[in-house]
C-alpha cells in the first residue's frame, strides 16, 4: 500500500481546519502586503496619500458610516448604498425577467427561435458601454439610463444563457409531458419553467459582476449619488481612504448578494443539487 506521501496530489485533501486556514491565507497576505507598503511610503513621506494606513482607513470608514453630511445631515454612505442597490436590483430584476420570458419562448417555440435567435445573437455583440451616450441622450441623466444600461448589458447574455438551458432539458421530459396530455403552455409552466428557475438564479449570479461594472460606469459619468458616483467624485481630492472604504464595501455587497442567491437556490430548489450530487 502506498504511503500518504506517495499519493497523487489530485487525491490529497486538506483537513477542515487546514482548509479554513488556507482560505484566509490569501486575505492575510494581501492585507500584510498593503500594510507594509503603506508603512514604507508613510515613513518616507508622512503626507503621502496613495497608500493610507489601515488605521486611517478604519477611522475614515467609521466616520463615513456614522456621520451625516455637513449640509444635508444625511449619512451619504447609506444614501449612496441605497441608491446603487435600487438601480442594481431594478436592472438585474428586469434583465432576469426578460431572460426568463424570452429564453423560455425561444428555447421552446420554433417560431420564436426562427424570429429572434439571430437577432438576439447580434444584439448581444453590441458593446453596452459604447451605447451609454445614446442612453443618456435618449433617457436623460436620471435613473432610467442607469437601469437601462444594466438591462442592455446583461439582458442579452441572460436570454441566451436561459435559452441554452431550456434546450438542455432532456427531450425525453418534454415528450413525456406530451404523452401525459400537457399543452405547450402547461409544458412551459410545469416542466420547463420549474427546471429553469434554479439555472436562472445561477445565471444571475454570474451576471452580477458585469451588472456592477455597468452600474458603476454609468454612475461615474452622471449621477446625483451612488457608490460609483462617490468614488469618482472623491478621486479629485485623491481621497484614497474614502475610495478604498467604498471599494471594500462594494466587494462585500457583491459577495453577500452572490451568497444570498446561492443559499436561495438551495432552499427553493432542493431537487436541483441532489441531481448533480
Amino acid at each position, binding site marked *: 500500500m502506498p504511503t500518504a506521501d506517495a499519493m497523487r496530489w489530485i487525491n490529497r485533501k486538506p483537513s477542515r481546519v487546514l482548509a479554513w486556514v488556507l482560505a484566509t491565507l490569501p486575505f492575510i497576505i494581501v492585507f500584510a502586503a498593503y500594510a507594509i507598503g503603506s508603512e514604507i511610503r508613510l515613513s518616507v513621506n508622512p503626507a503621502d496619500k496613495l497608500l493610507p494606513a489601515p488605521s486611517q482607513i478604519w477611522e475614515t470608514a467609521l466616520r463615513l458610516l456614522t456621520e451625516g453630511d455637513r449640509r444635508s445631515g444625511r449619512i451619504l454612505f447609506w444614501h449612496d448604498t441605497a441608491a446603487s442597490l435600487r438601480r442594481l436590483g431594478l436592472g438585474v430584476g428586469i434583465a432576469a425577467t426578460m431572460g426568463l420570458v424570452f429564453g423560455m419562448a425561444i428555447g421552446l417555440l420554433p417560431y420564436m427561435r426562427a424570429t429572434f435567435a439571430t437577432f438576439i445573437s447580434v444584439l448581444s455583440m453590441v458593446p453596452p458601454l459604447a451605447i451609454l451616450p445614446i442612453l443618456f441622450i435618449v433617457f436623460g441623466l436620471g435613473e432610467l439610463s442607469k437601469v437601462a444600461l444594466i438591462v442592455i448589458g446583461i439582458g442579452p447574455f441572460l436570454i441566451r444563457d436561459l435559452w441554452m438551458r431550456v434546450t438542455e432539458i432532456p427531450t425525453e*421530459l418534454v*415528450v413525456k409531458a*406530451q404523452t401525459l396530455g400537457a399543452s405547450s*403552455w402547461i409544458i412551459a409552466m410545469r416542466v420547463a419553467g420549474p427546471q429553469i428557475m434554479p439555472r436562472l438564479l445561477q445565471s444571475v449570479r454570474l451576471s452580477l459582476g458585469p451588472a456592477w461594472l455597468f452600474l458603476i460606469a454609468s454612475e461615474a459619468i452622471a449621477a446625483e449619488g451612488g457608490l460609483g458616483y462617490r468614488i469618482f467624485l472623491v478621486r479629485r481630492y485623491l481621497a484614497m481612504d474614502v475610495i478604498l472604504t467604498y471599494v471594500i464595501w462594494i466587494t462585500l455587497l457583491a459577495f453577500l448578494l452572490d451568497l444570498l442567491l446561492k443559499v436561495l437556490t438551495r432552499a427553493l430548489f432542493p*431537487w436541483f443539487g441532489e*441531481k448533480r450530487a
Partner: protein
Amino acid sequence: MSFVTVSNLRKDYGPRTIIENINVEVEEGQFISLVGASGCGKSTFLRLLLDQERPTSGTITVDGELFSGEPCQTRGIVFQRYSVFPHMTVRANIVAATAFTQGTWGWLFGNAKKQAQAEAQSTLDRIGLGHVAAQYPASLSGGMQQRLAIAQALAAKPRILLLDEPFGALDPGTKLSMHGFLEQLRVETGMTVFMVTHDLEEAFKLADRVLVFDKPKWDPDDLEKGGATITYDFDARNDGIPFQTLQENTNVFKSD
C-alpha cells in the same frame, strides 16, 4: 383490421437509411418485444410509433387512424433514462398525469387535488413506493425510478405502452420483480406493449411476439448502407416455448 398497422415504413437520417420495409400488424393487447443489434434502429422505430418523429415514407395507423404529428395520450412511453420529472416529488409525478390535462395552468385545486393525491398514493402503495411519496426521484434507486416511470405512464391510461430498454440498467433480481410488476399491470389494463430490450430471455419471457431487427443484406464495402428491417417475427407465447422448439429443430440440436 388489426389495431396497429405499420406499412412500408422507412426512416432516413440525412443520406442514411436507418430502417426500411417495415410491415407489421399488431392486435390490441399484444405484447411485442423488439430485439436487434445496437444502432439498428429500434429506438427510432419507437419514436415513430410515438409520433415524436415522422417517417420518411410509409404509414402507421392505430385503430385505423393516422397520427396527428405529435405525441399524445394514446401512447405512453418509458425511456431508459430521464423518464420522470426530477423537480417533482414522487407523488407529484403521478398526479401530473391528471393535472397536466387540467385547464390552462395544469394545476389541480381543492377536492380534485385531494382526490388525485389520494389516488396517486394508493397507486404508489400498490407498487411499493408509498413510503417515498414525498421524496424527489433523484433519491430513488434505478429500479424504483423505473417503477415510478411505468406507473406515471400508465396513470395517463394509454392504449399503447412503449418501453425503450426500461430494465437495461437493473440488476437481475430487480429485473425479475419488475417483470412480475409489468405482467400484473398488463393483465389489469389489457394494453398493447412494445418493448425494446437487449435481453433475449426477457424478450421471450414477457412477449407474445418477438420482432428481430436486422439488415437483410450487408454490403461488405459499406456497412452503413441499407436500412434494417424485421427479419424474424417469432411467436413467443407460452414463455417462449416455440422459440425453444425452433432451436431444437435447427441442426444444432438434432441428434440423428
